[in-house]
C-alpha cells in the first residue's frame, strides 16, 4: 500500500536520509527506529509532503504522491502526528478534533453562512463523532479545555485522535509515547493497536523506547545517519550486531 523507492534527502550538505526504501502492506504495523538525528522524522516529512525529496519516490495505493502538497497527501489517506506536539493551542480539544474532519465535511460556504439545517446537522454529527473518539482515548473530561493547557501526555492523545478523524488508511506516529514511562507507553500502544484493528489501519511508528516498539511492531527498520542499517522482525533486530553498535553510542538502550 505504501511503497517508498530509494528516497534520499539533503539539507544543504547534510544527507539526512539516504536511499531509504520500504514496502508496507495493508493492516501492517511497522516500526522505524534509530538514534537521535538518524532521519526518522525527516522520512515522515518526506512522506507527508512537508519536504520534497532530493531523489526517490513515494507511492501510495499505486499512485505516485511525490511532490504533492501536504493537504492533498492527507486527503489521500496518509496522516501523521508530530514529535514536537503541534496542536491548535487556544482552540478547545473538541475543536482541534473537528478541524481535522474538515475535508470530510460537505457544508458549503452559503449553507454555513445561512446556517441551513443541513449545516447544523453535519456540525452536530461531527461533534458527536469527535466526542466519541475522544472518549476512547480518555479525553471526555477535557473536551472543552484549550488544547494547549493540557499536560503533555494528554496532548499526544489529542494529536492521535485528531489524526484519526481524518479517516486515514495509513497512520504515521512520531514518538507517540515520548515522555511517558514504559508502563503508560505500553498502555497507549496497546490502545493504538486495538484502534488499528477496529479502523483497519496501517501504521508506521517511530519510537524511541525499544521495548515498546518490540512489543507491537511486526517488522522494524533501523536507521543510522540516514542509512537503513537493518530490517527484520523484532527478534532479529534485537540481536543484530549493527543495531547494537549504533545504539551503544547512545548508551545501549537495549
Amino acid at each position, binding site marked *: 500500500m505504501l511503497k517508498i523507492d530509494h528516497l534520499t534527502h539533503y*539539507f544543504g550538505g547534510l544527507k539526512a536520509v539516504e536511499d531509504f526504501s520500504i514496502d508496507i502492506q495493508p493492516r501492517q504495523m511497522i516500526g522505524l527506529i534509530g538514534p537521535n538525528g538518524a532521519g526518522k*522524522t525527516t522520512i515522515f*516529512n518526506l512522506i507527508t509532503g*512537508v519536504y520534497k525529496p532530493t531523489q526517490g519516490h513515494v507511492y501510495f495505493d499505486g499512485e505516485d504522491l511525490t511532490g504533492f502538497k501536504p493537504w492533498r497527501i492527507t486527503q489521500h489517506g496518509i496522516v501523521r502526528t*508530530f514529535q514536537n506536539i503541534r496542536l491548535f493551542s487556544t482552540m478547545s480539544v473538541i475543536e482541534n478534533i473537528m478541524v481535522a474532519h474538515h475535508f470530510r465535511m460537505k457544508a458549503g460556504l452559503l449553507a454555513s453562512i445561512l446556517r441551513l439545517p443541513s449545516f447544523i446537522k453535519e456540525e452536530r454529527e461531527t461533534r458527536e463523532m469527535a466526542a466519541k473518539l475522544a472518549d476512547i482515548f480518555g479525553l471526555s473530561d477535557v473536551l472543552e479545555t484549550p488544547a494547549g493547557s493540557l499536560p503533555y501526555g494528554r496532548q499526544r492523545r489529542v494529536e492521535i485522535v485528531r489524526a484519526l478523524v481524518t479517516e486515514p488508511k495509513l497512520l504515521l506516529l512520531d514518538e507517540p509515547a515520548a515522555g511517558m514511562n514504559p508502563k503508560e507507553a505500553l498502555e497507549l500502544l496497546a490502545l493504538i493497536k486495538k484502534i488499528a484493528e477496529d479502523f483497519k489501519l496501517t501504521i508506521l511508528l517511530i519510537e524511541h523506547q525499544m521495548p515498546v516498539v518490540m512489543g507491537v511492531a511486526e517488522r522494524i527498520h533501523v536507521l543510522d545517519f540516514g542509512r537503513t542499517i537493518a530490517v527484520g522482525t523484532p527478534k532479529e533486530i534485537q540481536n543484530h550486531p549493527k543495531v547494537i553498535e549504533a545504539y551503544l553510542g547512545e548508551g545501549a538502550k537495549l
Partner: protein
Amino acid sequence: MEVFLSQFIFGIQRGTIYALIALGYTMVYGVVRLINFAYGEVFMLGALFSFFIIQLMPLPPVLNVIVALLVPMALCAILGLAMDTVAYKPLRAKPRLAALITAIGVSFFLSNLVSYIGPDSVRTVSVLLFATAGLVILMTLSQKLFNFPKVPKSTGINWLKRSIMVGSLCLLGAVAWIAKPALALLRWKGSSFTAFPVDKLFEVVKYPIFGSVYITNVQIVIIIVAVVLMVALSFLVNRTMLGMAMRASKNNKEAVSLMGINVNSVIAFTFIIGTALAGAAGVLSAITYPRITAFMGIQPGLKAFIAAVLGGIGSIEGAMVGGIIMGLAEQFAIGLAPSSFGAAHIDFTPLAEGISFAILIVVLLLRPQGIFGEPPQDKV
C-alpha cells in the same frame, strides 16, 4: 542616447539613496527578522535635522557639508537606538507580528508628530511631555505608597529606569519648549512643504560630459558619499569583530550568546548603523529634491524596502544592487513614459510611479527570495 545617459545618471543617484535605506532594512531583518517600517521616518528626520543645522549654524563651506551630513547621522543613530530599546526589544520573545505592528506604530507616530509640530503646536507637545513625566511620577508614588495598581512584590520598581524615563521626558519637554522660534522656520502648514536650503551648501556647478548631458557637483557628492558609506559598511561587516558577531547572529543566536557576545548589543548596533545610513540617505535626498515634508519618508521607505526584497532581504550586497536597480527602473519609467498617447492625450507619467510596485509583484511571483537570497525552509 543623450536622454538615456542623463536618465542613467539620475537613476544611479536615486538608486544610491534607495540602497542606503535598503541596507538598514536588510541588516535588521537579517539579524532579528523584523521589518523596521520606520526607516522612512528616520530618512525624513535626517533631512529635517540637516535643515535645522544649516539654518541655525552658519559654517564655512565644505565644513558645513560634512557637519550637515554627520550630525544628522549621529542623531538618527541615537533615535534608532531609542526605537529599538523602547519599542522592539521588549517584544523579542513575542510573535514576530507584534514587533512588526509596533514598527508600523512607530512609523505612524513619528511622521504624524513631525507633521503636527510647528511653532503653534510645539508648546502643546512640550506640555504633554511634562504631563507624561508627571503621570509617571504620580504612578510611581502611588505604587510605592499604596501599592496601587497592584504590582507583585518581586517585580518592584526599577528606580533607575523610572528616573531615566522621567529625566528624558522632561529634557524633551524642555527642548520642545525652547524650540518654538526654530520651528518657525518650518512652514509646511501654508505651502505643504519647506524648501531645503541647498544654496547654503553648494553653488551648483554643471560639468558637461557628453553632448548636452551634464553631471552636477551635487550629484558627484551624493554618489561619492553613498559609495564611501557602503564601502565603510562592507568593511565593518566583513572585517571587524562586530560584523562577525552580526553575521553569526543571523544564523544562530544561541551559539553567539554562548560565545560570550551580548546578542542584544549586536542588535542595537545593527539598528544604529541602519538608522545612521537612512539618516544620511535623507540628507542626500533633500539635497537633490530640496523639499521636505513630514510624510516625505513614506514613499522612499517603501521603495527601499522593495529594493531590499528585490536584492534578497537579509543580504547586504542584495540591498545595494536592489537599490540601484530600483532607482534606474524608476528613473527610466518616469523619464520615458509617454506624457500623451495618440489622440486621447492620456498622460502615462502618473502610472510610471507605480513601476516599483510592479517590480515587487513580479519578484514575489518569480523569485520571492530575491536575487541574492536563499529559499527559506522551516523546520517541522
